[in-house]
């Protein structure tokens, strides 16, 4: 089991999910890691809006399809109030188009609901260790989106889109072609962890960029 240096000895998890079977599944999976704890659970958006930001959780598992609100709004709230926490989107399918929005709202990764206990634990461990799950289609969408943002970057330097470094661009391109992290590392002559770091940095840039835009928009409207 690979423990990250910055990983606390006891990972605290908060689940925002209305499906009780998923809650049971998470409980069941956590039996594999007795040192981890589920510190909170919200079945609705309104509950989570009050409770989740005040939790001491390190990892949030967020369902995008809440009965009374949008998961993206929850992510945006948590990314502002809990900037150090890992925000994992908990989704049934890899709906990449929606995942991009989730990433822009502050998500740092995603887990498929159909996974088994071990896969869930592995996903949480990977994200805490600095890894970042990404699919070829997601990489392609990100590449396209950032490329489309480029002209705006010139036109509006204040609200500049996140700058994509050359290495990040190479990594994204290879991911989009279906290569896995190990193959990418081999092709670019870098470590596998570095590949994950690039992707994670990209996620954070994306979210920070969005966050800055949200704050600026709020300021413009006199809300902040």
């Amino acid at each position, binding site marked *: 089991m690979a423990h990250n240096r910055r990983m606390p000895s006891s990972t605290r998890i908060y689940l925002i999910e209305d499906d009780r079977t998923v809650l049971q599944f998470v409980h069941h999976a956590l039996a594999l890691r007795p040192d981890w704890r589920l510190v909170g659970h919200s079945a609705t958006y309104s509950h989570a809006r009050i409770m989740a930001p005040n939790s001491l959780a390190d990892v949030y598992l967020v369902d995008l399809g809440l009965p009374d609100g949008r998961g993206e709004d929850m992510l945006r709230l948590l990314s502002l109030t809990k900037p150090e926490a890992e925000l994992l989107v908990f989704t049934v*399918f*890899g*709906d*990449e*188009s929606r995942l991009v929005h989730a990433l822009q709202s502050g998500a740092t990764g995603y887990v498929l609901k*159909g996974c088994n206990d071990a896969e869930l634990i592995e996903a949480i461990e990977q994200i805490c260790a600095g890894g970042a799950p990404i*699919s*070829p*289609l997601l*990489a*392609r969408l990100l*590449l*396209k989106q950032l*490329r489309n943002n480029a002209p705006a970057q010139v036109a509006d330097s204040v609200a500049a889109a996140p700058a994509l470094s050359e290495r990040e661009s190479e990594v994204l*391109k290879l*991911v*989009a*072609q*279906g*290569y*896995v992290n190990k*193959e990418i590392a081999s092709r670019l002559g870098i470590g596998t962890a570095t590949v994950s770091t690039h992707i994670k940095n990209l996620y954070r840039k994306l979210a920070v960029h969005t966050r800055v835009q949200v704050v600026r928009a709020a300021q413009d409207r006199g809300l902040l």
Partner: protein
Amino acid sequence: MRALPPAPPPPGQSAKRVPHYLWVGLLLLGLLWALHSVSMPAGLENAVTLREAQASLPQHPQQPPQRVSLPHILDDQPAAWSGWVDYRLDWPAALHYDDPAQTRLALLLPRVGTRFRVLLNGHEIYQVGWYAAPERNILSAWFPYLVSLPPGLLQAQPQQNQIHIQVQGQLLERSGLWPLQIGYHGSLFERHQVLEVWQVKGTWMMLISSLLMGLLSLHLWRTLNERLFLLMAVAALAHSVRLALSVSLEPPLSFGWYFYLHRLAFTWYVGFFLLFVAELLAFRDRLVHGLAWFLIGVGPFWLAWTLHTQDYDLYRIWAGAMAVCGALSLLSLLFRSLQRGALESDQILVLLVASFTLATGVRDFLVVQLNFPGDADLRWTSLGSLALLFTLSWVLAQRATASTREVHRLNQSLAGILAKREAELRQAFDQLRASEQQRAIEGERRRLMRDMHDGLGSQLVQTLNMVRSQKHTLDAGSVESMIHHALEELRLMLDSLEPMEGDLATILGTFRQRIEPALVAAGIELDWQVQDVPALSSLDAQGVMHLFRCMQEIFANVVKHAQARRVCVRTRSDAAHVYLTVTDDGLGMQRPHTKPQAQRGLGNLRARAGKLGAQVRFFDAHPGTGIEFAFPIHRTFTPEAGDTVPSVE
């Protein structure tokens, strides 16, 4: 050609305003008075009008001289007179002088010709065309002449002076000598100036106006394509030809051609003018049209006959016919107009001026042709025609303006209709597009239903049957595996719906995510050699699903039957194709007993590749098997242009 409706009254014209035809009527009355006053001078001071002469024929000395009254027209005389005639004038008793050297006397010849010379006491003092070659065509009769009598040639006694005017006539041209005046130069000079202005300069003015009018009408006809302007153009240009020939002292034509063209131009002027007036009044009057076309059609033959017979009476008849036709036509039009109801002001104006012109023409016909009492020095028709031309110019300008306004109004109306049609077209297009979208959505819905039925549905039914049939010996692992497969099937279907824009590398990468766990479980290593290739338009959502199914079939075959340790997926492209190759290092194609299921799978592969428009090729990979898909590149687009690729929402 089309005729515009009568011009509407100009905007802002008040009903109480004095109509323009009243003003013009007053002007015409003034013109008549002016013509009358210059034509019937109330006896010139210090001058005497000579109305008689002693005529002799120098070429026929046996013919005794005879006393003739002026005008003496050679056409009205026997054939012998058509040659050379000598007129001896009697010195008027009222004209006397004391000292010839101090006397400034002159002769005023308002009309004489066609060639002539003046002799005073045996000395030639003036001549026009007298010595010109016989074949030259000299026409002096249109111009008034002022001939000074040299004091040095005058006799001491006035009664002893001998004045001869010798004339060489030209048949059909009404040659001869008209009443003339003799008297003091100063008085006759003023009279000559008046005649010069009205007769010669007036003709030039009219020629220029008529030419301008003709060209302008021609231009308007070409622009507006309205017959009215064409009729006016022909009439005005015919009139111009007549006037140009009239003011030529020595036209560059033989007399025959001159006579024919001059009279024919006048005939056509009258004919086309009548047609024009009928058109302007918006009448299809049979009588007017018949008379006008009679003049236009019969004129050339009649005139040719006249020229052939050299009989001036024939032309006199023709001139009378023109006057009668004109009068009848105008009367008929007036009658029809009154019958129809109130005349428009422009129509009244044209009728008024046309009547004036006709009156001047009739007057000239009576005085000049039939020797009615009156002063034949001046032809009134010239002034009448000028007035008519100016009036018609004004009316035509009105018509052109009205036509422009009408075109503007029609343009506005058309623009409105066009905008309406455009809106309808856009609406129809939107409906069509909506219908197309609906059809596409419907097609996609059916495809999804079919896929779900054949894939996910089938998987779930199998699982359900298994659970039902093995209630007591249910293997949880088997159920989990089957549900997992169902979930994977669903994910594959959803993956196919993602907007991948024909990007083969990403499509294969997405598939890799789904298949790799199975390969890992089977201990098969995946060698991924995928690179970017041009986008393929055949890989829409349905195409992606077909490709996924093909890849599933291939990998299932590798895992289950090939006994392979390694599978390589590779993409490449050339100018015409994109190639996808999957090779394994398994048993290869020479397997002794290929199962029917595998054969069926290969058939499916070919069928799906066909739907993708791709060619599929199987080959021996030594060891193992290779499959290559060749996708034709119908169109290429860069990722930036990828947004233009139609995708299923």
